[in-house]
């Protein structure tokens, strides 16, 4: 039987704003399937985003949704989770939103290990504003503000998250659509700050400038560069050159999460 996405969508809010061929919709479908797998109580679930094409995702899903300001999703979400730890809190947004203007909130959410799941859709570009380079645009690539090729090195979001203290870090791609829900479901189940990076595509502002002839070509690139962590173990450094690891990259179940720690603060304060 076909999966019933509509059950989770807000009536009357489609069509979505995304361009044909944009990967953000694939990620949204993955999130919905994950929510369904976990039977999340939608009344008790908040999806919080920043600003950008990716950040429009929450509006379509029928739960408590908070479309904040550019880069601030993690900070708003921290307030939601602190005030109501029993809520499921999911964040989403683009690479620009999360690693440029929102980079500070991102690393501190990782450091606190606050029990939320952050889905970051990395299309290597600022899509919504017309294709300026982001901190994830690869060196040498073209954006509307790097007409001679990007001089900046890009971030590795997963490494950044691990370094900052996130206790679950995974990566998938929009091509490997069937894995997305599994990664997100595992991330939501993890107690602590979990990050799921989905390598995504923006045919409109990135593909065009970087000589991808079609969405299919962009998707094929995702297929080619992705190597599951298990498979990578058997590969040489030479073979791994230019590849990107996918799957669950890091998991640490030993660290306590932030709201649990704060509950202990309350206990100590009240014991006095």
């Amino acid at each position, binding site marked *: 039987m076909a999966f019933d996405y509509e059950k989770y969508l807000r009536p009357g809010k489609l069509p979505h704003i995304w361009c044909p061929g944009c990967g953000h919709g694939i990620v949204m479908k993955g999130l919905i399937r994950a929510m369904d797998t976990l039977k999340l109580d939608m009344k008790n679930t908040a999806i919080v985003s920043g600003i950008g094409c990716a950040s429009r995702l929450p509006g379509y899903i029928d739960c408590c949704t*908070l479309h904040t300001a550019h880069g601030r999703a993690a900070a708003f979400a921290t307030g939601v989770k602190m005030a*109501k730890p029993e809520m499921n809190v999911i964040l989403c947004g683009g690479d620009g939103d999360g690693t440029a203007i929102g980079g500070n909130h991102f690393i*501190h959410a990782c450091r606190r290990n606050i029990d939320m799941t952050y889905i970051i859709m990395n299309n290597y570009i600022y899509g919504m504003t017309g294709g300026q380079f982001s901190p994830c645009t690869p060196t040498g690539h073209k954006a509307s503000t790097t007409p001679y090729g990007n001089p900046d090195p890009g971030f590795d979001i997963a490494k950044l998250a691990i370094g900052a203290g996130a206790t679950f870090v995974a990566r998938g791609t929009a091509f490997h659509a069937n894995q997305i829900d599994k990664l997100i479901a595992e991330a939501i189940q993890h107690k602590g700050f979990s990050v799921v990076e989905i390598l995504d595509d923006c045919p409109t502002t990135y593909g065009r400038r970087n000589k991808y002839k079609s969405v299919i070509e962009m998707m094929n690139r995702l297929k080619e560069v992705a190597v599951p962590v298990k498979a990578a173990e058997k590969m040489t450094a030479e073979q791994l050159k230019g590849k990107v690891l996918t799957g669950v990259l890091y998991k640490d179940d030993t660290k306590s999460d932030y709201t649990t720690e704060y509950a202990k603060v309350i206990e100590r304060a009240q014991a006095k």
Partner: protein
Amino acid sequence: MAKKVAFMQGNEAAAHGALYAGCNFFGGYPITPSTEVSEVLSIELPKVGGKFIQMEDEIGAMAACLGASLTGAKALTSTSGPGLSLKQELIGYGCIAEIPCVVFNVMRGGPSTGMPTGPSQSDVMCAKWGTHGDHATIALMPASVQECYDMVAEAFSLAEKYRMPVHVLPDEIIAHMRERIEFREPGEIEITPRKAPTVPPEQYKPYDTSFGDVPPLANFGSGYRYHVTGLNKMQDGFPTTKAEIVQAEEERQVRKVDACIDDIVTFEEYMLDDAEVVVVAYGSTSRSARYAVNAAREQGINAGMFRIKTFWPFPDKQIKALAAKVKGFIIPEMNLGMCSIELERCAQGKIPVLGIFRVDGEPINPEQIVEKIKEVK
């Protein structure tokens, strides 16, 4: 039973006023001269099961407060000049998305890092106009430690009543000086709860104006599912660019305060009955002004004081009535003439508005004010 009294700082009193009002969430970032508010609340909030979080910056602190408030928490942030500048985008978010919270901003010298420990009153325009776009503003001006307590408590009620961020703006003198204060008994200051929805979740719209200019706000996690955005929105909370809806919603968000100005505005009239020269003052400066009015009267001048307690919305009606009656306004303020602009606007050239403006980190003393009073012919 005797009232609980204490000898404390304005900042400490503000924290206790917040607790009186039921504050159960604080998000902040340390900055002189406001840090004591967070220090007190880091101790007191967990005792009552509340949450205290020190965020990574003031933007994050503001965001956390707005997020917490959406779940029903009564949220406070405290800061000072540079922090107020950083909070501005999200204060605007609170205005457009209509999320209650209280911003306690201790005014120090500026711009930029300015004089971190010097008193100032130069954030009054920043509180009003700091965030971009049209929006209503409510800002209260304590002039004593007791008023820090009382006004913070009142600010929580105003925030809920009008569904918006509310400012409390003490200057550094008020925030750091110590005075005797009384802790209020339950019921002594009215605590307005959040207007909860009366319709079932299927019918709920977060900006449903059939309930008036301030629609009920459902808490996240209470069974109501809805959307919140910083884009111009329709009654159901979803973005729109439809001209007539945007216009109507923007106007409502300003009107909700403007139409209730008489309920919101508070002030103190001191010796105004026969006054010919009126010192308009606020915050710590009003303490010098009171002294100056007494001194001028001893010298046979009919002086009086109008003390602004609610700075925004500005007490236009009262100031205009005075302008029609008296010979001149004196405005002492620790900035280069911010309130003065408002007085000029209200006086419409009918009477002179004489300013005493100090930004050197020193308080305005009564003698300066008396001298100015004498200049009014």
